[in-house]
């Protein structure tokens, strides 16, 4: 009986492999290796199993000229899954809103091609291949960590497919090529905003830098070591932290020994929350200053009252009294997903919005979409988005502070 | 000049003297046995001969070469090959492969000969395979050539171990209780087989409990008890030696009176 099952297993696998290959249709024309910009790869051979996006409605009564897809590759399994889920939710919301308002997009039915890249570079590269070889895909939105995003971008550049990232802050990200855009602020801007807040609100104090050992953390740290001395503040200590660390006893001891009064927390909430909790347990007056990724409901749920008074530069404000559009979007996102959006999720929403806008204007042509986006003036939910010559979006920063468990907008003029 | 000359080797494990001051020698072409009750230190002597343990004192000369303290690999190169008390064959390899592996030390070709399959490599491999078949023929295992070592019956596995020892082209064969666990028929054919080895010019050093085999086959016998030599000589002398009897069978009432102690 045992031998039977093993034979069945490998037969089944061989069959599915054969079926996978049989799914390919040989190409009509041979592809010449000329410049990727103007040829889209031949066979419309999307991989055997179709992606399970929910808006798979058949084109209605002949009015739409076919289907256009936006590719989304995010981690949906592994320990970055919940960040990936949010980007996916924002993308789906963007498509839903577009359908409610416009119905079709440039005469095409809009679909999302969502893939799980398991937060691994190999997977991201394979998915990039799927997206570029699918003729309907007109743009892609990229992943959570820079190692996955950066292994996919060469493929997009090689084949000429626009790739917008809502999370990447790696300095060399947009240097890959002219098809790669970034709808996220660069660490230099982020660090500047955070330093400015501390300088103006708290004043010149000895500061500590707590940064996670990944490309974003290291860049922020390098930038701050240059800028902080010029602002009259002194750096007491700087401590890197490796991924999935839970114990910060020793790091905190170093900061306290160096007499730091303010700690710059350059890490995502899942790393910074235990740090803040343990620090607050030992020292109640210390103040924290975060970065854009600290503007996240999870920070408050995980730290509770420990992060009271924490300063966070924000490019986005939930339930903002000052900007009605932001308020409406927060409400819509909350009703759809049951959680307040993070700035990364909002940027994902705008990325998809931009691509749909481009398709609506120039139709189903990847190169034209690229040119359109390069010089776009997109009235996004976050702000009016334009790209500079290095294809980075410029962001305006609002100041936020945590007060009794809520992010509250700080009026800048008070401290000017 | 004896082929193997061992004088007063001794070793102790944590204060307990397993073997103390044991000397013996083996002439070319002779069958010598070492017997003694369990725990007398026979296998320890073996392990010292083959380099598994390093004797605390004494010297072991083989063919005039002092091999006390040499690594097991060098001792095998000198020409001493052994079998094991509990069979240690390469179970998942074929019978003929077990024998060919025995010839490992004499296969003289380098890494690049192997890579480029040079003539030197091919002739050496062919010679080894041919010689292995001859040895299997001699040992009477040629019909099992292609079987896997673990599928052989117990008696044949013993013979394969001996065949592997022969393959190292050793001058002295050390057999560690080859007849252990064999019925009378099997030990009979084993005895016959060892005698044929003697005719073929092999020198054999034997450890055995089966008195029938030892008495019929050995030219000389040494008796070991608690690590000390208590008797040596021809089989007939050993059988009647009172000390050997007491060592083996313990003191009978008459024996004690006769000895008068």
């Amino acid at each position: 009986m045992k031998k039977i099952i093993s034979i069945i297993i490998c037969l089944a696998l061989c069959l599915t492999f054969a079926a996978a290959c049989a799914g390919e249709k040989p190409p009509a024309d041979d592809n010449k290796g000329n410049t990727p910009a103007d040829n889209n790869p031949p066979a419309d051979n999307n991989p055997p199993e179709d992606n399970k996006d929910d808006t798979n409605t058949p084109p209605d009564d002949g009015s739409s000229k076919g289907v256009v897809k936006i590719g989304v590759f995010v981690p949906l399994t592994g320990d970055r899954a919940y960040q990936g889920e949010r980007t996916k939710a924002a993308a789906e919301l963007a498509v839903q809103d577009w359908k409610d308002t416009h119905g079709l997009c440039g005469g095409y039915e809009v679909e999302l091609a969502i893939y799980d890249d398991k937060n691994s570079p190999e997977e991201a590269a394979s998915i990039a291949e799927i997206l570029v070889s699918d003729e309907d895909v007109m743009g892609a939105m990229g992943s959570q960590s820079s190692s996955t995003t950066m292994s996919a971008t060469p493929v997009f550049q090689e084949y000429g497919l626009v790739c917008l990232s809502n999370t990447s802050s790696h300095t060399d990200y947009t240097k890959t090529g002219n098809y790669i855009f970034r709808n996220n602020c660069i660490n230099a801007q982020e660090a500047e905003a955070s330093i400015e807040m501390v300088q103006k609100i708290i004043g010149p104090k000895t500061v500590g830098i707590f940064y996670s050992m990944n490309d974003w953390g290291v860049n922020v740290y390098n930038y701050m070591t240059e800028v902080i001395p010029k602002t009259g503040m002194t750096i007491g200590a700087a401590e890197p932290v490796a991924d999935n660390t839970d114990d910060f006893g020793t790091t905190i001891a170093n900061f306290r020994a160096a007499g730091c009064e303010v700690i710059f927390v350059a890490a995502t909430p899942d790393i910074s929350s235990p740090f803040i909790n343990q620090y607050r347990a030992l020292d109640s007056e210390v103040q924290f200053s975060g970065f854009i990724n600290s503007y996240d409901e999870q920070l408050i749920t995980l730290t509770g009252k420990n992060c009271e008074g924490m300063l966070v530069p924000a490019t986005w404000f939930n339930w903002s009294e000052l900007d009605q559009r932001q308020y409406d979007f927060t409400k819509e996102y909350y009703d759809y997903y049951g959680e307040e959006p993070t700035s990364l999720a909002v940027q994902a929403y705008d990325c998809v919005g931009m691509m749909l806008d481009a398709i609506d204007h120039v139709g189903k042509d990847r190169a034209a979409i690229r040119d359109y986006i390069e010089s776009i003036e997109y009235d996004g939910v976050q702000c009016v988005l334009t790209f500079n010559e290095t294809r980075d979006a410029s962001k305006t920063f609002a100041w936020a502070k945590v007060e009794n468990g809520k992010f509250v907008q700080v009026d800048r003029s008070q401290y000017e | 000049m004896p082929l193997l000359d061992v004088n007063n080797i001794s070793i102790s494990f944590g204060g307990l003297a397993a073997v103390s001051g044991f000397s013996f020698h083996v002439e070319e072409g002779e069958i010598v046995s070492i017997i003694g009750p369990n725990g007398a230190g026979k296998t320890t002597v073996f392990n010292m001969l083959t380099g598994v343990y390093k004797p605390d004192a004494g010297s072991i000369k083989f063919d005039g070469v002092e091999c006390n303290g040499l690594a097991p690999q060098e001792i095998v190169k000198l020409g001493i090959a052994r079998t094991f008390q509990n069979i240690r064959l390469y179970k998942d390899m074929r019978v003929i492969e077990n024998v060919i592996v025995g010839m490992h030390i004499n296969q003289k070709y380098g890494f690049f000969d192997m890579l480029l399959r040079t003539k030197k490599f091919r002739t050496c491999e062919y010679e080894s395979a041919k010689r292995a078949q001859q040895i299997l023929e001699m040992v009477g295992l040629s019909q099992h050539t292609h079987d896997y070592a673990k599928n052989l019956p117990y008696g044949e596995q013993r013979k394969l171990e001996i065949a592997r020892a022969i393959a190292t082209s050793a001058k002295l064969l050390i057999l560690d209780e080859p007849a252990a666990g064999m019925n009378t028929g099997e030990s009979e054919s084993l005895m016959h087989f060892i005698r044929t080895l003697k005719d073929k010019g092999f020198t054999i050093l034997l450890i055995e409990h089966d008195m029938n085999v030892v008495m019929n086959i050995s030219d000389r016998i040494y008796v070991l008890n608690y690590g000390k030599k208590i008797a040596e000589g021809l089989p007939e002398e050993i059988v009647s030696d009172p000390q050997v009897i007491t060592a083996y069978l313990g003191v009978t009432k008459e024996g004690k009176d006769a000895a008068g102690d």
Partner: protein
Amino acid sequence: MKEKTMNLSNAFKSFLAFCDRWKAVIIPLLIAVAAILPQLGFSTYIIRLMCNILIYTSVGMALNLLVGYTGLVSLGNVAFFCIGAYTSAILTANCGWNFFATLPIVALTASLGGVMVGLPTLRLSGPFLSITALGFAEVIRLIAMNFMSLTNGPLGIRSIPRPNLFGLELNLFNKGFYYALLVLVLLITLFIYLLTNSKYGRALRAIKNDEIAAGLMGIRTGSYKVMAFVICSALSGIVGAFYASMIQYIEPNSFTQDNSILTLSVVVVGGMGTLRGPYLGAIILVLLPELLRGAEGLRFVIYGLALVLMMRFRPQGILGWKSPLPYKLPSPPRDAGKR
């Protein structure tokens, strides 16, 4: 029911025996199929999958020498993979070398790693050896993370060029990279075939079966085990270089423990101690996640389940088996008679 299972498993066994007997015909046939496969106009996604399969076959082949033939279960093979990838990436991306010119140095540095693991573990056996190898891989990953000047630390190395042979760039587009990998796999297979059918291979297998007996039969077990480690690490390093060139961006976190476990599973699922095992193991373990792409959450659960079921019903691996065919005696060299 009993007889039905028996004759079906006998059918499978006779099928394998048939393939073994007609090896001389089947193997060239398979190579031919592998050669024309990319020309059938697959999308680059499938080509990249095939390249992944070839990569894991070759690194599985290298690890098989250690696990399957010598019985040293190393859980840290990603260390050599990482050393090879970084050496090649640094030389090609930063110093502008040609990819193929870096391979000898890659093999050298990787085998240095091999010696560093091989020597201290001579006296260790079983789980202790596996853990030391796993620890070594973690240490290598940390060195890559902290050695900012050489490996650029967590920022990783970007835009690693594809290999180019006399001016022709081998990439997935013109399928040149696939053929380079195919040649690599066949070379490694040939090398391991030559190695295992010689006194070196027999010595390694003897060490796996019974190290003490092998030692007492005159085999210098220590140096052979280190030799096995060096060969395995050198080959893994070279395959790591190809991986870096294919993925074009590497950073310390792309060389985690999962990679070692995946390589070990390729060897074990395919069939330890066989030449053909890693081929099937790689095909299954690379395709399995792709086929399960639809079931996001379930994917890894099914991968784990496949491992457990495989170990339960066919622990020797799908293609692992005791060949009933007679042992191939070497034919006399043509001019043996002349001597």
